[in-house]
């Protein structure tokens, strides 16, 4: 059953800017990964890390023909901005950029690009990994997997998003 997209007039969320990071948080076209990397260029940086998550064509032996992502865009934007700021502080980064694609994407295309820059490589590696883990745990974005036979399934692993009030109040 098809459901209309949740966000349309929220388009400004795609273009939210903050703190000198001029990359959009969400795009519906292929991510320009080199642009994301270039966005974190900084004279104070000796390390630049770019992580690109791509759509797999097979998971645990099950074929996937494509993916679709949707988000609560205003909440996801707030969360990504907060995570970026926390990453900069926690890992003493020079700059940090995150771009997530929404809508349908083909196998092999990028679903997310994370770029960080900092004085040293160890912190930069860890920062990119930390950001990816946090996004997968708490950012209100969802993935739907399409099968070659036309079936599709939304992925809702685990429990409530990390950081939500109910999750925090659980014993």
């Amino acid at each position, binding site marked *: *059953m*098809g*459901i*209309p*997209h*949740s*966000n*349309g*007039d*929220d*388009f400004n969320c795609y273009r939210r800017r903050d703190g000198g990071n001029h990359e959009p948080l969400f795009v519906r076209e292929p991510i320009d990964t080199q642009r994301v990397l270039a966005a974190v260029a900084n004279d104070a940086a000796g390390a630049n890390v770019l992580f690109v*998550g791509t759509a797999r064509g097979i998971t645990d032996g099950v074929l996937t023909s494509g993916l*679709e*992502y*949707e*988000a*609560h*865009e*205003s*909440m*996801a934007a*707030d969360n990504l901005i907060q995570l970026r700021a926390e990453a900069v502080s926690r890992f003493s980064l020079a700059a940090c950029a995150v771009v*997530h694609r929404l809508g*349908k994407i083909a196998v092999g295309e990028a*679903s*997310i690009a994370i770029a960080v820059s900092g004085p040293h490589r160890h912190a930069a590696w860890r920062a990119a990994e930390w950001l*990816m883990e946090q*996004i*997968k*745990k*708490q*950012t*209100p*974005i*969802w*993935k*739907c997997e399409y099968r070659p036979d036309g079936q599709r*399934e*939304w*992925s*809702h*692993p*685990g*429990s*409530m*998003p990390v*950081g*939500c*009030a*109910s*999750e*925090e*109040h659980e014993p």
Partner: protein
Amino acid sequence: MNPSAFNSTVVPSPGGHSTSQPVHASAQAMPPPQSEILRITFFAGMAEAVGRRHLDMPWTGGSVEQLRAMLAAECPVIAPLLARSAVALAGVYAADQTVVPAGADVAIIPPVSGG
């Protein structure tokens, strides 16, 4: 779900019914709900189970926990996923004890899978 449970209050989702269509509306962008009405927005598998993106339902007051119970009773098919979902009011996560005011903009946030 059983749509008839909400037939008298449901506002049809704007913008067609295909996920492949361009985005059209959001909880934030919709006209303000009337008083004594909750606008509930569903996402991903929850929206698919419910069969619609938005639901306007009468609300006489109560907590997030009571809202959860009402939704689960009215729509048992979503109960298991609802139990694993968070509730947000005006874009902010709310604890089960939080009072949900009439006219609130409610979003049901199921377990996430971005990245």
